[in-house]
């Protein structure tokens, strides 16, 4: 079987298109690269949507933590503590079995036990908590002068937040947020190892890499392929976030625009 044929069969296998059966033996390099790459679709899907949706909740959480109202602040603090203080792996398990229990109560919860929705919700809440903490830190280190200048120009309430505070907060948080995004994409690899079933063997990249390693008993081929894909993904994320960073700091003098290398200790 030619490599082109393999790509046609397996490129979208993780979504359920193409050949139904996974290769059983005589695995070629082409098959491994294609299937693991096919699984990457899920990693990108989880990471992308969790990142986008988590961004908005994170802004709310950061504002909640900085709020003067006690119950709002306490709520935000507990939310962050719950999701940052416990392992993502356990959160996945708990959510899956929780949804399973809810499923027997009402059929509305049927899609929640599938990875595409259930795991996405967990990742969304998780990244919102981590990002919320980053944004809160940035919110507290906004230069006093910026806010005072805004006040002097007659900004207040929503316009002041939207035009002055929010963009500055994002710019300050950006290096750490880049890191968070990288580790969020890495965390997506946990989904199919934590209770959520890979229905009809439609799994993510690590699921397929693990499949090949189990079948061939040779970890030295599938895992480096997976590593290659993830390094590529990391480079793409760093590139995109760098572009956004350039946009966020376009008003600064040239030498202040470069993103400082973020500290990397933010994994779950």
């Amino acid at each position: 079987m030619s490599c082109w044929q393999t790509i046609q069969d397996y490129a979208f296998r993780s979504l359920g298109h193409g050949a139904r059966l996974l290769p059983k033996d005589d695995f070629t390099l082409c098959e491994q690269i294609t299937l693991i790459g096919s699984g990457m679709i899920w990693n990108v899907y989880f990471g992308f949507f969790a990142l986008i949706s988590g961004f908005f909740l994170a802004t709310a959480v950061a504002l909640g933590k900085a709020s003067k109202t006690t119950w709002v602040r306490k709520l935000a603090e507990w939310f962050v503590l719950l999701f940052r203080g416990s392992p993502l792996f356990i959160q996945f398990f708990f959510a899956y079995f929780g949804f399973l229990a809810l499923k027997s109560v009402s059929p509305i919860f049927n899609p929640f036990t599938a990875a595409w929705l259930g795991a996405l919700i967990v990742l969304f809440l998780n990244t919102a908590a981590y990002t919320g903490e980053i944004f809160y830190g940035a919110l507290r280190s906004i230069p006093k002068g910026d806010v005072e200048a805004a006040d002097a120009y007659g900004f207040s309430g929503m316009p002041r937040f939207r035009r002055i505070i929010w963009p500055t907060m994002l710019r300050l948080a950006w290096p750490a947020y880049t890191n968070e995004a990288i580790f969020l994409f890495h965390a997506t690899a946990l989904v199919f190892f934590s209770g959520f079933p890979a229905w009809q063997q439609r799994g993510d990249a690590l699921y397929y890499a693990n499949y090949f390693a189990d079948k061939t008993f040779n970890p030295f081929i599938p895992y480096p392929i997976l590593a290659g894909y993830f390094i590529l993904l990391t480079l793409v994320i760093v590139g995109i976030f760098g572009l956004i960073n350039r946009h966020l700091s376009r008003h600064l003098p040239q030498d202040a625009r470069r993103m400082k290398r973020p500290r990397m200790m933010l994994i779950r």
Partner: protein
Amino acid sequence: MFSYCTDPSALEGLTWLSCYLTTGKHAGFYISFGTVLLLLAITAPTALAFGFAGATAARSRIWPVKWFGKTYIAIVRGVPDIAFFLFFVIALDQMFEWARHQIKCPDWDEPIRQGNDFVVCQAAKLPLGEAPQWVHETYGFFLAVLTFAIVFGAFAANVLFGAMRAVPHGQLETAEAYGMSRRQTFWRILVPQMWVYALPGLSNLWMVLIKATPLLFLLGVEDIVYWARELGGTKLSRFTEYPHGDWRMWYFLVLLVFYLCFTKVSELFIERLMVKLTHGQATTGGETQRKAAV
């Protein structure tokens, strides 16, 4: 456990629960919490040693060593740690068996990889086929510790590498001016001073390490996740004296609370430690303390 537990089906409420929670299987569950703590206790210093070696290598003047150290530090940033866990557990096992195979059976002429099989001679098997169960379990645990140490050693190396660079350069120059050799400067000046700079990163790493312990389950060790799944699943009255529905959610809730408490306690402890260590230091933290005391 208790004397009234002889006929669980007749019991109700709290008495039933007290019997249920003290069965032999639950003892395994409680012991597995010890497994997790043991793993942490062994892994943390081992990973620190790996990290120290990695950071030292990355500073080396010999370029292959330097290159190796830098790659070791850099690689964990690009690839999910769970992939490393799954990789190293098999890779290390095969590496050990291969090495033993080369030593113990030098006149073996068949290839080691035959299709989808990894074949070594009987004497090179790890652990040996006739070894008792506990040897198998210990070997599995040993592999898990080594895997954790390699992965977290890379993180620790990154922290220590940064800390070594944070030590003021003047200190090292002064040491040189006093005629100390490179080795002496390293051990007498750099290493004692770097810990203050490394502590925030290392304490963060400790938190991350705590939260990585449930991954033991993926490495085939019977840890708390294994037991929570095992005990929580639906039990029919045919197989057990304590039938119940699907309680896995509640078991994982217990684990969630366990980890929350563990991280919270660690956080408080580290805060105390930081206050102690920054006392009298010429940093912003130390300055704030001094002002508060006045």
